Protein backbone atom coordinates (compact mmCIF):
# COMPACT_ATOMS: atom_id res chain seq x y z
CA UNK A 1 0.00 0.00 0.00
CA UNK A 2 1.21 3.49 -0.83
CA UNK A 3 1.37 6.26 1.78
CA UNK A 4 -1.32 8.24 -0.03
CA UNK A 5 -3.73 5.37 0.43
CA UNK A 6 -2.75 5.09 4.08
CA UNK A 7 -3.59 8.78 4.39
CA UNK A 8 -7.02 8.14 2.90
CA UNK A 9 -7.65 5.33 5.38
CA UNK A 10 -6.58 7.53 8.29
CA UNK A 11 -9.09 10.17 7.23
CA UNK A 12 -11.85 7.61 6.80
CA UNK A 13 -11.23 6.36 10.35
CA UNK A 14 -11.10 9.88 11.82
CA UNK A 15 -14.25 10.81 9.87
CA UNK A 16 -15.98 7.85 11.50
CA UNK A 17 -16.54 6.08 8.17
CA UNK A 18 -14.30 3.15 9.13
CA UNK A 19 -13.95 1.55 12.57
CA UNK A 20 -10.35 0.56 11.85
CA UNK A 21 -8.20 -0.96 9.15
CA UNK A 22 -5.88 -3.98 9.43
CA UNK A 23 -4.28 -2.89 6.13
CA UNK A 24 -3.43 0.49 7.63
CA UNK A 25 -2.05 -1.19 10.76
CA UNK A 26 0.33 -3.31 8.73
CA UNK A 27 1.43 -0.28 6.67
CA UNK A 28 2.14 1.69 9.85
CA UNK A 29 4.40 -1.08 11.12
CA UNK A 30 6.68 -0.66 8.14
CA UNK A 31 6.38 3.11 7.49
CA UNK A 32 7.71 5.42 10.14
CA UNK A 33 6.52 8.68 8.61
CA UNK A 34 2.93 7.43 8.33
CA UNK A 35 3.11 6.06 11.89
CA UNK A 36 4.22 9.47 13.19
CA UNK A 37 1.53 11.16 11.19
CA UNK A 38 -1.18 8.82 12.47
CA UNK A 39 -0.08 9.43 16.04
CA UNK A 40 -0.09 13.21 15.50
CA UNK A 41 -3.54 13.21 13.91
CA UNK A 42 -4.97 11.05 16.70
CA UNK A 43 -3.52 13.36 19.34
CA UNK A 44 -4.92 16.36 17.49
CA UNK A 45 -8.40 14.87 17.31
CA UNK A 46 -8.34 13.90 20.98
CA UNK A 47 -7.18 17.44 21.89
CA UNK A 48 -10.11 18.84 19.96
CA UNK A 49 -12.58 16.32 21.37
CA UNK A 50 -11.50 17.30 24.87
CA UNK A 51 -13.13 20.69 24.25
CA UNK A 52 -16.58 19.08 23.98
CA UNK A 53 -19.14 19.39 26.70
CA UNK A 54 -18.54 22.92 27.98
CA UNK A 55 -22.08 23.73 29.14
CA UNK A 56 -23.69 27.10 28.60
CA UNK A 57 -24.47 28.95 31.82
CA UNK A 58 -28.11 28.37 32.85
CA UNK A 59 -28.69 32.13 33.19
CA UNK A 60 -28.49 32.34 29.41
CA UNK A 61 -32.13 31.30 28.95
CA UNK A 62 -33.72 34.06 31.10
CA UNK A 63 -31.22 36.51 29.64
CA UNK A 64 -32.24 35.68 26.08
CA UNK A 65 -35.94 35.74 26.95
CA UNK A 66 -35.51 39.21 28.49
CA UNK A 67 -33.66 40.39 25.37
CA UNK A 68 -36.52 38.98 23.33
CA UNK A 69 -39.04 41.14 25.19
CA UNK A 70 -36.84 44.20 24.78
CA UNK A 71 -36.52 43.33 21.10
CA UNK A 72 -40.30 43.12 20.71
CA UNK A 73 -40.76 46.47 22.47
CA UNK A 74 -38.13 48.03 20.23
CA UNK A 75 -39.89 46.60 17.19
CA UNK A 76 -43.12 48.23 18.37
CA UNK A 77 -41.31 51.54 18.79
CA UNK A 78 -39.82 51.19 15.35
CA UNK A 79 -43.27 50.59 13.86
CA UNK A 80 -44.61 53.71 15.58
CA UNK A 81 -41.66 55.80 14.40
CA UNK A 82 -42.20 54.58 10.83
CA UNK A 83 -45.87 55.43 11.05
CA UNK A 84 -45.18 58.93 12.37
CA UNK A 85 -42.50 59.56 9.74
CA UNK A 86 -44.73 58.31 6.93
CA UNK A 87 -47.72 60.27 8.27
CA UNK A 88 -45.76 63.53 8.49
CA UNK A 89 -44.49 63.11 4.97
CA UNK A 90 -47.95 62.40 3.58
CA UNK A 91 -49.28 65.46 5.41
CA UNK A 92 -46.46 67.67 4.10
CA UNK A 93 -47.09 66.42 0.58
CA UNK A 94 -50.85 67.05 0.87
CA UNK A 95 -50.23 70.61 2.06
CA UNK A 96 -47.86 71.13 -0.86
CA UNK A 97 -50.37 69.73 -3.35
CA UNK A 98 -53.21 71.86 -1.94
CA UNK A 99 -50.98 74.92 -2.18
CA UNK A 100 -50.09 74.08 -5.78
CA UNK A 101 -53.74 73.64 -6.75
CA UNK A 102 -54.68 76.90 -5.03
CA UNK A 103 -51.86 78.64 -6.87
CA UNK A 104 -53.36 77.27 -10.07
CA UNK A 105 -50.24 75.38 -11.11
CA UNK A 106 -51.10 72.53 -13.41
CA UNK A 107 -51.67 68.83 -12.83
CA UNK A 108 -48.18 67.91 -14.03
CA UNK A 109 -46.51 69.39 -10.97
CA UNK A 110 -49.03 67.72 -8.66
CA UNK A 111 -48.39 64.36 -10.29
CA UNK A 112 -44.69 64.90 -9.86
CA UNK A 113 -45.10 65.51 -6.14
CA UNK A 114 -47.40 62.51 -5.73
CA UNK A 115 -44.91 60.24 -7.48
CA UNK A 116 -42.00 61.61 -5.49
CA UNK A 117 -43.85 61.14 -2.18
CA UNK A 118 -44.77 57.61 -3.08
CA UNK A 119 -41.18 56.75 -3.99
CA UNK A 120 -39.90 58.27 -0.77
CA UNK A 121 -42.47 56.41 1.31
CA UNK A 122 -41.54 53.06 -0.15
CA UNK A 123 -37.91 53.99 0.43
CA UNK A 124 -38.67 54.66 4.11
CA UNK A 125 -40.44 51.33 4.49
CA UNK A 126 -37.65 49.48 2.71
CA UNK A 127 -35.13 51.07 5.04
CA UNK A 128 -37.23 50.39 8.11
CA UNK A 129 -35.14 47.49 9.32
CA UNK A 130 -31.82 49.03 8.42
CA UNK A 131 -32.39 52.45 9.90
CA UNK A 132 -31.16 52.33 13.45
CA UNK A 133 -34.35 51.99 15.43
CA UNK A 134 -33.92 55.55 16.68
CA UNK A 135 -36.42 58.20 15.77
CA UNK A 136 -33.55 60.58 14.95
CA UNK A 137 -33.13 58.79 11.62
CA UNK A 138 -36.78 59.32 10.81
CA UNK A 139 -36.70 62.94 11.96
CA UNK A 140 -33.81 63.50 9.54
CA UNK A 141 -35.80 61.96 6.70
CA UNK A 142 -38.86 64.09 7.43
CA UNK A 143 -36.64 67.16 7.66
CA UNK A 144 -35.02 66.39 4.30
CA UNK A 145 -38.40 65.82 2.71
CA UNK A 146 -39.73 69.11 4.13
CA UNK A 147 -36.62 70.79 2.73
CA UNK A 148 -37.22 69.31 -0.72
CA UNK A 149 -40.86 70.44 -0.64
CA UNK A 150 -40.02 73.94 0.57
CA UNK A 151 -37.29 74.40 -2.03
CA UNK A 152 -39.63 73.11 -4.74
CA UNK A 153 -42.45 75.41 -3.68
CA UNK A 154 -40.31 78.52 -3.33
CA UNK A 155 -38.62 77.75 -6.64
CA UNK A 156 -41.92 77.28 -8.41
CA UNK A 157 -43.39 80.40 -6.84
CA UNK A 158 -40.39 82.36 -8.09
CA UNK A 159 -40.69 80.89 -11.61
CA UNK A 160 -44.45 81.58 -11.53
CA UNK A 161 -43.91 85.17 -10.54
CA UNK A 162 -41.32 85.73 -13.28
CA UNK A 163 -43.63 84.15 -15.88
CA UNK A 164 -46.58 86.22 -14.66
CA UNK A 165 -44.45 89.35 -14.86
CA UNK A 166 -43.33 88.39 -18.36
CA UNK A 167 -46.90 87.73 -19.54
CA UNK A 168 -48.12 90.99 -18.00
CA UNK A 169 -45.32 92.90 -19.73
CA UNK A 170 -46.15 91.26 -23.08
CA UNK A 171 -49.81 92.05 -22.59
CA UNK A 172 -48.92 95.62 -21.69
CA UNK A 173 -46.85 95.93 -24.89
CA UNK A 174 -49.68 94.42 -26.96
CA UNK A 175 -52.27 96.80 -25.52
CA UNK A 176 -49.98 99.75 -26.08
CA UNK A 177 -49.37 98.72 -29.70
CA UNK A 178 -53.09 98.36 -30.57
CA UNK A 179 -54.03 101.74 -29.15
Amino acid at each position, binding site marked *: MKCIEADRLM*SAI*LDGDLPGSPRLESHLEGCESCALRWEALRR*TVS*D*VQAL*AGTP*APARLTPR*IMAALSADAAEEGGRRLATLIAAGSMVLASLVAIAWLWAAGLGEGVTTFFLTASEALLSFVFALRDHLAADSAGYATLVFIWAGILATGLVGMAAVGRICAGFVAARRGVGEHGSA
Partner: protein
Amino acid sequence: MSELSDAELVSGVLSGNRDFFAHLIDRHRNRVFSVMLTAVGNRDMAEDLTQETFLKAYRNLGSYDSAQAKFSTWLLTIATRLRIDTHRRAKPESSLDRMQEDKGFDPDSGVRTDRGLEQEAVGQVVRDAIGRLPERQRVAVTLKHIEGLPFSEIAQIMGCTVNSAKVHAHRGRNRLAQLLGHIREEGLA
Protein backbone atom coordinates in the same frame (compact mmCIF):
# COMPACT_ATOMS: atom_id res chain seq x y z
CA MET B 1 -43.60 20.38 27.72
CA SER B 2 -40.46 18.29 27.57
CA GLU B 3 -42.23 15.64 25.53
CA LEU B 4 -43.03 18.13 22.75
CA SER B 5 -40.79 17.90 19.69
CA ASP B 6 -38.75 20.88 18.51
CA ALA B 7 -41.11 21.32 15.56
CA GLU B 8 -44.12 21.36 17.90
CA LEU B 9 -42.45 23.93 20.13
CA VAL B 10 -41.70 26.06 17.06
CA SER B 11 -45.34 26.05 15.94
CA GLY B 12 -46.33 26.84 19.52
CA VAL B 13 -44.11 29.93 19.49
CA LEU B 14 -45.44 30.94 16.08
CA SER B 15 -49.02 30.74 17.31
CA GLY B 16 -48.21 33.21 20.06
CA ASN B 17 -46.86 31.07 22.89
CA ARG B 18 -43.59 32.85 23.41
CA ASP B 19 -42.68 30.84 26.52
CA PHE B 20 -42.20 27.78 24.33
CA PHE B 21 -39.12 29.47 22.98
CA ALA B 22 -37.51 29.22 26.43
CA HIS B 23 -37.72 25.43 26.10
CA LEU B 24 -36.04 25.55 22.71
CA ILE B 25 -33.25 27.65 24.25
CA ASP B 26 -32.89 25.19 27.14
CA ARG B 27 -32.57 22.33 24.72
CA HIS B 28 -30.07 23.88 22.33
CA ARG B 29 -28.10 26.52 24.24
CA ASN B 30 -25.25 24.15 25.13
CA ARG B 31 -24.48 23.26 21.54
CA VAL B 32 -24.70 26.83 20.24
CA PHE B 33 -22.61 28.10 23.15
CA SER B 34 -20.00 25.39 22.61
CA VAL B 35 -19.68 26.20 18.91
CA MET B 36 -19.37 29.90 19.69
CA LEU B 37 -16.86 29.32 22.49
CA THR B 38 -14.65 27.32 20.14
CA ALA B 39 -15.00 30.06 17.55
CA VAL B 40 -14.18 33.07 19.73
CA GLY B 41 -12.36 31.47 22.69
CA ASN B 42 -13.96 33.87 25.15
CA ARG B 43 -16.93 33.02 27.39
CA ASP B 44 -18.45 36.52 27.43
CA MET B 45 -18.32 36.86 23.68
CA ALA B 46 -19.62 33.32 23.27
CA GLU B 47 -22.59 34.15 25.51
CA ASP B 48 -23.33 37.30 23.52
CA LEU B 49 -23.13 35.41 20.23
CA THR B 50 -25.34 32.63 21.59
CA GLN B 51 -27.93 35.24 22.57
CA GLU B 52 -27.66 36.85 19.13
CA THR B 53 -28.16 33.46 17.48
CA PHE B 54 -31.37 32.78 19.41
CA LEU B 55 -32.71 36.31 18.80
CA LYS B 56 -32.07 35.88 15.11
CA ALA B 57 -33.72 32.46 15.17
CA TYR B 58 -36.75 33.94 16.93
CA ARG B 59 -37.11 36.70 14.35
CA ASN B 60 -36.84 34.23 11.47
CA LEU B 61 -38.77 31.39 13.06
CA GLY B 62 -41.46 31.66 10.39
CA SER B 63 -38.95 30.59 7.76
CA TYR B 64 -37.95 27.40 9.59
CA ASP B 65 -39.14 24.29 7.75
CA SER B 66 -39.02 21.13 9.86
CA ALA B 67 -39.30 19.01 6.70
CA GLN B 68 -36.00 20.42 5.43
CA ALA B 69 -33.77 20.35 8.50
CA LYS B 70 -33.66 19.51 12.17
CA PHE B 71 -34.12 22.57 14.37
CA SER B 72 -30.58 22.16 15.74
CA THR B 73 -29.16 22.10 12.20
CA TRP B 74 -31.10 25.24 11.28
CA LEU B 75 -29.94 26.94 14.48
CA LEU B 76 -26.29 26.04 13.85
CA THR B 77 -26.58 27.39 10.32
CA ILE B 78 -27.65 30.73 11.80
CA ALA B 79 -24.86 30.53 14.40
CA THR B 80 -22.23 29.77 11.76
CA ARG B 81 -23.29 32.67 9.54
CA LEU B 82 -23.47 35.02 12.49
CA ARG B 83 -20.01 34.00 13.60
CA ILE B 84 -18.61 34.57 10.08
CA ASP B 85 -20.19 38.04 9.99
CA THR B 86 -18.80 39.08 13.38
CA HIS B 87 -15.41 37.58 12.57
CA ARG B 88 -15.18 39.86 9.54
CA ARG B 89 -15.85 42.87 11.74
CA ALA B 90 -13.32 42.15 14.48
CA LYS B 91 -10.53 39.65 14.98
CA PRO B 92 -9.94 39.09 18.68
CA GLU B 93 -6.45 38.86 20.12
CA SER B 94 -5.34 35.27 20.22
CA SER B 95 -4.36 33.88 23.59
CA LEU B 96 -1.95 31.57 21.73
CA ASP B 97 0.02 34.72 20.93
CA ARG B 98 -0.24 35.89 24.53
CA MET B 99 0.95 32.55 25.88
CA GLN B 100 3.82 32.39 23.49
CA GLU B 101 4.91 35.82 24.70
CA ASP B 102 4.15 35.41 28.40
CA LYS B 103 5.41 31.94 29.07
CA GLY B 104 8.00 31.50 26.41
CA PHE B 105 5.67 28.90 24.93
CA ASP B 106 7.25 27.23 21.96
CA PRO B 107 4.77 25.72 19.51
CA ASP B 108 7.50 23.56 18.00
CA SER B 109 8.06 21.79 21.29
CA GLY B 110 4.38 20.88 21.46
CA VAL B 111 1.66 21.78 23.90
CA ARG B 112 1.97 18.68 26.03
CA THR B 113 5.63 19.07 26.83
CA ASP B 114 4.91 22.35 28.64
CA ARG B 115 4.03 21.01 32.07
CA GLY B 116 3.31 24.51 33.39
CA LEU B 117 0.09 24.83 31.46
CA GLU B 118 -3.08 24.05 33.36
CA GLN B 119 -5.66 21.79 31.80
CA GLU B 120 -7.89 24.76 31.01
CA ALA B 121 -5.03 26.68 29.48
CA VAL B 122 -4.32 23.72 27.21
CA GLY B 123 -7.95 23.83 26.16
CA GLN B 124 -7.54 27.52 25.44
CA VAL B 125 -4.47 26.85 23.30
CA VAL B 126 -6.39 24.23 21.33
CA ARG B 127 -9.30 26.68 20.91
CA ASP B 128 -6.94 29.36 19.67
CA ALA B 129 -5.33 26.97 17.21
CA ILE B 130 -8.79 26.10 15.88
CA GLY B 131 -9.50 29.82 15.68
CA ARG B 132 -6.53 30.21 13.36
CA LEU B 133 -7.88 27.77 10.81
CA PRO B 134 -9.51 29.09 7.65
CA GLU B 135 -13.21 29.61 8.30
CA ARG B 136 -14.57 26.51 6.57
CA GLN B 137 -11.93 24.19 8.01
CA ARG B 138 -12.70 25.56 11.47
CA VAL B 139 -16.43 25.00 11.08
CA ALA B 140 -15.96 21.46 9.76
CA VAL B 141 -13.50 20.46 12.52
CA THR B 142 -15.64 22.01 15.25
CA LEU B 143 -18.89 20.42 14.13
CA LYS B 144 -17.26 17.02 13.53
CA HIS B 145 -14.93 16.58 16.45
CA ILE B 146 -16.41 18.80 19.17
CA GLU B 147 -20.11 18.56 18.40
CA GLY B 148 -19.89 15.06 16.94
CA LEU B 149 -22.32 15.78 14.13
CA PRO B 150 -22.58 13.46 11.11
CA PHE B 151 -21.17 14.87 7.86
CA SER B 152 -24.65 14.92 6.33
CA GLU B 153 -25.65 17.58 8.87
CA ILE B 154 -22.34 19.40 8.68
CA ALA B 155 -22.75 19.67 4.91
CA GLN B 156 -26.25 21.08 5.41
CA ILE B 157 -24.99 23.69 7.88
CA MET B 158 -22.05 24.66 5.66
CA GLY B 159 -24.13 24.65 2.51
CA CYS B 160 -21.81 22.28 0.67
CA THR B 161 -21.56 18.63 -0.31
CA VAL B 162 -20.67 15.88 2.16
CA ASN B 163 -17.42 15.28 0.29
CA SER B 164 -16.35 18.89 0.45
CA ALA B 165 -17.20 19.02 4.18
CA LYS B 166 -14.91 16.00 4.61
CA VAL B 167 -12.13 17.69 2.66
CA HIS B 168 -12.39 20.75 4.92
CA ALA B 169 -12.25 18.55 8.04
CA HIS B 170 -9.25 16.66 6.63
CA ARG B 171 -7.31 19.83 5.85
CA GLY B 172 -8.32 21.38 9.14
CA ARG B 173 -6.99 18.39 11.12
CA ASN B 174 -3.68 18.47 9.25
CA ARG B 175 -3.24 22.20 9.80
CA LEU B 176 -4.23 21.85 13.44
CA ALA B 177 -1.68 19.07 13.98
CA GLN B 178 0.97 21.54 12.81
CA LEU B 179 -0.36 24.45 14.88
CA LEU B 180 -0.42 22.28 18.01
CA GLY B 181 3.09 21.12 17.33
CA HIS B 182 2.19 17.47 16.87
CA ILE B 183 3.59 17.55 13.34
CA ARG B 184 6.59 19.51 12.20
CA GLU B 185 6.47 18.86 8.50
CA GLU B 186 4.96 21.49 6.22
CA GLY B 187 2.79 21.21 3.16
CA LEU B 188 0.47 18.42 4.23
CA ALA B 189 -2.52 18.33 1.96
